[in-house]
């Protein structure tokens, strides 16, 4: 069991790093969907045979939202705003990957100092979730277009979700459902914002927002 959890968490981390280096929007959305499936598997496996109603609901709802609804919405939005398929970044690929690895190192180091009230079933839980949060932040910073920043936001949220799952027994599941709802609403609002940016500037490049004048 522990090895399976380790492998899933590692795949999540690898897909995050892969997202950092991708240059195609369509591929990035597919990776997000794949990551959604991985995350939906986690509550089932970490329950260790005893499936609580709690775990089942979280698993299926995150499958529905993370693996199906959000990717669909994103690809719909990408088509709607007719943004370019290229992902633009402020820093080149190599620098992004090095920064990503630096962030991973930091999160593994920080995770050692993390005093948790519960014991987690895999020693990768905390570092991977921290790394996902920080890689998400990194993507928010280095991406130029709103739609690719949404992906960073989702990566960040997936990190929070992993952290939440490690405390699943303690955490009331209303909170988690609230988080899921938040994300969905967040992506929705960003979708609408993207449409507006697109309407005003014919482009999703957020640099345009700095030249806003009345």
């Amino acid at each position: 069991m522990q090895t399976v959890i380790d492998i899933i968490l590692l795949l999540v981390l690898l897909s995050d790093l892969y997202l950092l280096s991708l240059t195609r929007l369509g591929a990035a959305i597919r990776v997000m969907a794949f990551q959604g499936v991985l995350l939906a598997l986690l509550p089932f496996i970490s329950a260790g045979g005893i499936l609580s109603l709690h775990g089942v609901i979280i698993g299926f709802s995150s499958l529905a939202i993370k693996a199906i609804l959000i990717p669909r919405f994103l690809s719909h939005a990408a088509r709607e705003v007719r943004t370019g398929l290229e992902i633009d970044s402020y820093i080149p690929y190599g620098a992004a990957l090095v920064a990503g690895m630096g962030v991973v190192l930091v999160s593994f180091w920080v995770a050692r100092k993390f005093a948790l009230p519960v014991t987690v079933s895999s020693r990768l839980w905390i570092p991977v979730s921290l790394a996902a949060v920080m890689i998400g932040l990194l993507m928010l910073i280095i991406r130029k277009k709103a739609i690719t920043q949404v992906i960073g936001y989702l990566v960040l949220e997936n990190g929070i979700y992993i952290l939440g799952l490690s405390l699943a027994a303690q955490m009331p599941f209303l909170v988690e459902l609230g988080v899921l709802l938040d994300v969905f609403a967040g992506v929705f609002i960003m979708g609408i914002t993207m449409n507006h940016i697109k309407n005003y500037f014919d482009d999703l490049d957020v640099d345009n927002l700095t030249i806003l004048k009345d």
Partner: protein
Amino acid sequence: MRFSALIFFLLSLLAAPLLTGWIVRVKALFAGRRGAPVTQLYRDLFRLLRKGAVYSRSTSPLFWLAPMITLAATVAALALLPLPGYAALIAFPGDLILFAYLFALGRFFTILAALDTASAFEGMGASREAWYAIFAELILFLGLATLVRFTNSLSLSQIFESRAVTIEYADSPALALLLVSLFVAMLAENSRIPVDDPATHLELTMIHEVMVLDHSGPDFAFILYGAALKLWIWAMFLTLVIISSFPSPNSLRPLIAAGVLFIIATAIGIVESVMARLRLERVPQMLMGAGALGLLSYIILG
């Protein structure tokens, strides 16, 4: 056990061209051809050894010396490589650094000889070789660091002996990451397909082959044989990482090693058949990705 190490050493020297031959064969089978016999490289080597060498008037003795130094460095690296289950011919704490730098020494002299010819094409190939080697070397060192941390020993022979006892099943994701990163480094170091195409004959796109265009006769035989030996060493290194991670009786290990070696060569052949070469600037990206995997494997051992 020095005697078995000596036999392994001599056997490797003899059998190394077979590995290259088998890869070429796999590629031919994939393309639906019968392909050259597996022993083709031996025939090429004998043919070249019988010939005389031609030296350009503009080259210095370095050009004549470099293929020999490269081959000698590779043979020395082979002497450091242990036979699965037994110690290597030469083993001392820290020999893994020497192992990595012997490859670097060989590459350094190949590059110098290429620059010595003052040919524009060879200079270009040398520049690319040095560029990719930076990344490949990093991956090799990360892999070695992971192995050292795993086994708490500083000699290749010890690393591949003690791992069999210390490995835990829980660490297998780290092992998988390590293997993937080392496999990519092997493809880059030995100028195999996603990085360089050993079969290409267009000077503009060649990397390793373009550097040795001016060598002829015995010198070229040394280079070809050295390349085959280097591939053998890298494949053997990967094999050792794999088989020393799983418990198996010592007497069976050479057989298992031969099997794994065969599988790795087949894997290289398949990769070469199904993949196209990467665009020049994409190669460092792939190597950096592989380096990230290696670093991750080091981290998660934690």
